[in-house]
């Protein structure tokens, strides 16, 4: 099962290597990772999607907690958090009909047409992973020339935040 881990880490060089290196060394597979600075310039938030059963994820969490630069780590529950990913596609449009269909698909996913040429169309979309996976599958029928995904970012809903989610480690 895919888990979404949200880490607060010290914002200084080398942190990403320390965290990513831990995953490599322990043989965990990162599905996606995204990093950006937070409201506090001394801290960055990393969102890491990993696969594995409950025991593996617990072990990952404990190993990450040991890292000197990791301030907190949470395993985000699906129904308690927002998870979003941005994806950009360039899709082939051999005919006007296919172009029209693609624009229709885009509409269903609230995606935006970012650019168009005679033979292709560029689409950007934000959504949760399931939505991005779906649109990717649908667009693949027409032939995806290029695509890029950011990896997910995630946060707990304020209404679901618990006192133990404060900045300190567990």
């Amino acid at each position: 099962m895919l888990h979404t881990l949200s880490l607060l880490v010290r914002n200084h060089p080398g942190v990403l290597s320390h965290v990513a290196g831990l995953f490599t060394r322990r043989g965990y597979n990162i599905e996606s990772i995204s990093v950006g600075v937070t409201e506090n310039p001394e801290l960055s938030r990393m969102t890491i999607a990993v696969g594995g059963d409950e025991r593996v994820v617990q072990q990952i969490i404990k190993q990450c907690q040991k890292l000197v630069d990791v301030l907190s780590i949470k395993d985000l529950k699906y129904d308690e958090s927002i998870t979003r990913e941005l994806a950009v596609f360039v899709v082939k449009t051999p005919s006007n009909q296919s172009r029209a269909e693609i624009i229709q698909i885009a509409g269903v996913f609230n995606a935006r047409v970012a650019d168009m040429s005679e033979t292709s169309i560029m689409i950007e979309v934000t959504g949760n992973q399931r939505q991005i996976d779906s649109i990717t599958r649908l667009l693949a029928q027409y032939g995806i020339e290029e695509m890029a995904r950011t990896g997910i970012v995630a946060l707990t809903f304020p209404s679901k935040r618990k006192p133990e989610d404060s900045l300190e480690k567990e």
Partner: protein
Amino acid sequence: MKLTGAQILIESLKAEGVEVIFGIPGGAIMPVYDVLFDSGIAHILTRHEQGAIHAAEGYARTTGKVGVCMATSGPGATNLVTGLVDALMDSTPIVAITGQVPTHLIGTDGFQEADIYGISIPATKYNYLVRDVNKLAQIVAEAFYIARTGRPGPVLIDLPKDIQNAVTEYVKPKPVSLPCYNQYFQEINEAQVDKAIQAIEEAERPVIYVGGGVIISGAHQELYEFAKRTRIPVTTTLMGLGSFPGTDELSLGMLGMHGTKYANYAMGEADLILALGARFDDRVTGKVSEFARNAKIVHVDIDAAEINKIVYAHIPIRGDVKKVLQVFLKKLDKAKLKTYDKWHKQIQEWKTQYPLTYENSEDRVIPQYVVEQIYEATKGEAIITVGVGQHQMWAAQYYRFQAPRSWVSSSGLGTMGFGFPAAIGAQVAYPHRTVFTIDGDGSFQMTIQELATAVQYHLPIKIAILNNGYLGMVRQWQQLFFKGRYSHTFLGSPDFVKIAEGYGAVGILITKKAEVRPAIEKALETDNTVVMDFRIPQEDNVYPMIPAGGTLKQMIG
């Protein structure tokens, strides 16, 4: 007060109480060496950086203090890597300081540049690349704090040459406060201890399984009292040797792949295992799914990540073993303790039926006999360091360790060549104690050049080579599991007596059983470094043995 980076470093080391550094200089660390020259801190010049870091480990493991080693950039730094991983695996507090090319050359493939920061990320507990001389004092304070607290480990500080030369106002470091580093310092959950005590009250066949954590936390006295009061038998890992007196009636000796049969049977039959500062290494568990299947497991560890890592702990207790045991002892007054008579009778039967013995009738130099003679001649009071292989296991089996921090073995990583330089560190720490290296001819040759170091600093280390002319442990596996095809394990080792003499040490050749004890006595009387070349049978094996990943039922010998 204005100081250079190099001066700040040395001031900071003094502030940490550093008395000795093991290392080798070079271009990128010369400003620091210049300050070191008249600093009052001793320096031991080894002949290889691997020797320096293993010596620092030997110093750290026997004293409990942080061991410090130093190297230049590039090849000097990369030569430390094996020791860093070794220290990480065995939770040894080390601060390694490496010179680095000047900041403006970093990333340009400058002469003797290596990205030791990047290389050492998975090899250290934490590491630093110093980019600002104003942060240096604070970084050194942090490094020592991280190395010695919680679960100890190695920390590396990479120090570019221009930072060593940069001048700044020296400000004493603030007390270390690392908001991200507090997972080790929690209250002990007493309710969990209550549960564990209840489990002790209910058990019929309990065993205490002790790892290196007991030694690191200095909990041997608490352990002794706990075992004596509960009358629960004690088995230790390779790292745990010395945490409980090996001659005590409750001692089961070492468990695991080459552990005693009675320790392994006891673990196999136990209905309660109290794991104290031990991490269920595969050399202990064998096939995990078959390991201690009927036992309830209480796991005490300072490192939360160790709990449930390999085996499921029914009662996890997170904390420093010494403090946890103190809570146990306090609560024992009210506990309804049993005497486990049936269990002790069973264990006694196993001990009688499967004692740890060896064939000793012939007039050959039997390795186990050599170890026993060293044990007797030193009254069990020596510091013993070892390489990796059969000799290491014979030493673990037949030297009955009585006290903590007297056994120094590369256990987690299994680094050949560890023993002799580690002895250098131990002898530097304890000039007046007997320090013995029990080594293999293969292991010894991996760091043999440190003979020059031992002789130069007048370190009276006694080196007992159990010389079988083979990479013995690998040969044993070849014999047992590869149809006797001895693929590239024959060494045909050199004349160690002449080599010893060439380095200015004393060499003794021992080819007969009758020569064993006199040679050891002579070595103990000599105040020079002594190399004893014990010619043991080429094809002797270490027994008992559980094959890798095997189960108790597959135990050989």
